[in-house]
């Protein structure tokens, strides 16, 4: 891949490229943010372990590639096949992981329907948070023990095709990321809005007690929400591995936090909000790093998060959480 000598870019093309950069990482944030937002919507829990699920997804995709012995870029049927296999293993594995976490760690802490539904102080809230953090530590360490503490190389099996237009460049990989996340997000929106299951999810998010009275299997819906969110995070993980070519057991923490910021940015509990939030955050980061300073890039995310929570906690599109008495 020969590199031509640098040509000076016009400010317009520079901006365009930064936007493309931001869009790409933003798409990944959006996929992860969906998991946070859906779970918070139904049980008002910040699933701290969600970032690790994303990381596990990346490692599962890596495992799939190692098993299949992929080392070179592929084309055509092989490409689609491998992509599908990776996604399948990642979603399958993480879906089960999400279910497991919900069942074993979080469900036992939820107040049983027989008990009062009024506020019971901060202790249960804190207990859930501590549990979530415990799960997060456990997963990080488990992956480190299984796969080693060094960065693992993620095989780049997307052909390295690049298009240039007046200095702005776009790679095939970026297009793949946009398309994959776009398709998934549209599918989710359709699921939530147009199917019976989706309606049940929205109802549970709004008022679980009423749902129970109506015979909706609330526990199962919650479990499904976890599984779905984890599946999305898994795809995000795979795309992340493809984009950066390395995976490390520590990747979940920071990316998870940023994705959570994105979820809050869009309005926690609001599914289109998570998508918008992810893209906006990615673009803000890219523009900040490109025009201001690269070192402070991570601070932007946190400043946005803190600023949002202080001044507009409902986010860009408004939050959707259950009303509590």
């Amino acid at each position: 891949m020969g590199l031509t000598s640098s040509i000076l870019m016009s400010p317009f093309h520079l901006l365009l490229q930064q936007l493309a950069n931001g869009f790409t990482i933003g798409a990944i944030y959006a996929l992860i943010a969906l998991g946070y937002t859906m779970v918070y919507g139904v049980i008002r829990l910040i699933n701290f372990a969600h970032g690790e699920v994303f990381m596990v997804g990346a490692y599962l995709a890596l495992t799939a590639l190692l098993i299949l012995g992929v080392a070179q870029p592929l084309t055509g049927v092989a490409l689609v096949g491998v992509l599908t296999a990776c996604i399948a293993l990642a979603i399958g594995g993480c879906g089960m992981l999400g279910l497991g976490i919900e069942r074993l760690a979080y469900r036992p802490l939820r107040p049983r329907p027989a008990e009062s539904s009024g506020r019971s102080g901060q202790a249960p809230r804190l207990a859930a948070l501590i549990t979530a953090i415990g799960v997060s530590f456990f997963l990080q360490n488990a992956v480190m023990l299984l796969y080693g503490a060094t960065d693992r190389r993620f095989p780049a099996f997307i052909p390295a095709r690049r298009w240039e237009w007046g200095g702005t460049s776009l790679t095939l990989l970026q297009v793949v990321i946009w398309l994959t996340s776009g398709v998934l997000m549209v599918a989710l929106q359709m699921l939530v809005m147009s199917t019976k299951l989706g309606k049940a999810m929205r109802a549970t998010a709004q008022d679980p007690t009423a749902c129970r009275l109506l015979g909706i299997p609330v526990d199962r819906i919650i479990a499904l929400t976890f599984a779905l969110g984890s599946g999305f995070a898994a795809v995000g993980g795979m795309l992340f591995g493809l984009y950066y070519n390395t995976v490390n057991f520590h990747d979940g923490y920071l990316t998870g936090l940023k994705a959570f910021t994105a979820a809050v940015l869009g309005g926690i509990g609001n599914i289109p909000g998570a998508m918008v939030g992810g893209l906006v955050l990615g673009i803000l980061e890219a523009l900040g790093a490109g025009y201001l300073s690269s070192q402070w890039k991570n601070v932007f995310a946190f400043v946005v998060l803190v600023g949002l929570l202080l001044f507009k906690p409902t986010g860009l599109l408004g939050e959707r959480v259950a009303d509590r008495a």
Partner: protein
Amino acid sequence: MFNTHSTFQIQQHAGICLLTVLLAGCGQQRSPVVKIGFVAPLTGDQASQGGSMRNGATLALEHAKAHGDILPGYRVELVELDDQHSPTQAVAAAKKLVADPDVVAVVGNLNSSCTMPASAIYHQARMLQITPVSSNPQISRQGFDTFYRTCATDDLQGPAAALFVVRELGAKRVFLLDDMTTYGRGLANEFEKKLRALGAQVLDHEGITQGDKDFTPLLTKIKALAPDLVYFAGMFPEGALLIKQRAEVGLGGRFMGGDGLFDPVLIELATPQAAEGVYLTTIGSDVHQTPTAKDFVQAYEARYGSIGAYSAYAYEATSIALWAIGRAGTKDRRAILAAMKTLKDYPGVFGVQNFDDKGDSLIRDIGLFTVNNGKFVFLKTASWD
């Protein structure tokens, strides 16, 4: 209330007794032993370099033992500690080693940001410290007589790179990056000084954070400035990502770095295609082309496979430390330090080894490498003036 208080007392008392017994039990030894500490990143993203250094050190110990008793009546062991290129952990490791009376010398660390704070602790404990590859010049300027290093320093590496960039690559517009560590920032500053002195234009000098992954916005910004060359003073994990993303973003021109990039993992992570044509300097000559290193190369490759970037330096540092112990003839830290001062014309892997009064090696070769067909290729020894 009273009840809980006495229960608690008993609990605490028992706890402390148990703790004491446990901890005391840990301290038992059987036969007399003398230990050399070895501190490097053994886990984490730089583990491949730390690991290859450990191999070199282990090999040095074996070779020394094969030549007879190092210190009659004692077993000699290597104590490996992990610093994960974190200065805090390096300090903790240093304290641990210093508190162990069996440890008489230390080979460490890899990163200058770790070696620097650790050197103060070793100095206070009067314990010999030889760093294989920490190249920041400030470390030897602290006036610690316990500090030695078996590599060249960045006040040579930086200018050497600058000369190459201006005189042989003909670059006029250069963008500088560093990873804000002691090593990276120091090297980049040396490079910049010489570059300006030679009349080239420094477009800007920015920092990246270690552990960061996404450099596409930064590289896009650099692309808009159209530099002839981008110079990165930092380690290979970030270097690999920079090289790879630079290709994706379409940033043209050359890319050059320092010895921190010199690891085969760099080419693997960056992809051979993107890494093609990347230049870098090293803090010593090519070990494959040095006649005095032949035996080491053979032994290492037979045992461990391909040689890592820093294996030879770790081998050298450990061998010299062992020599000092043998020369002192006793387990006393100060005696070993005194013995080290008497070192003259040591037949080392890189040639005849001597140290100046600051502890810097008098072998001051700066190697120049490029990446060709997915491998590092030695070009020549660079000059710095």
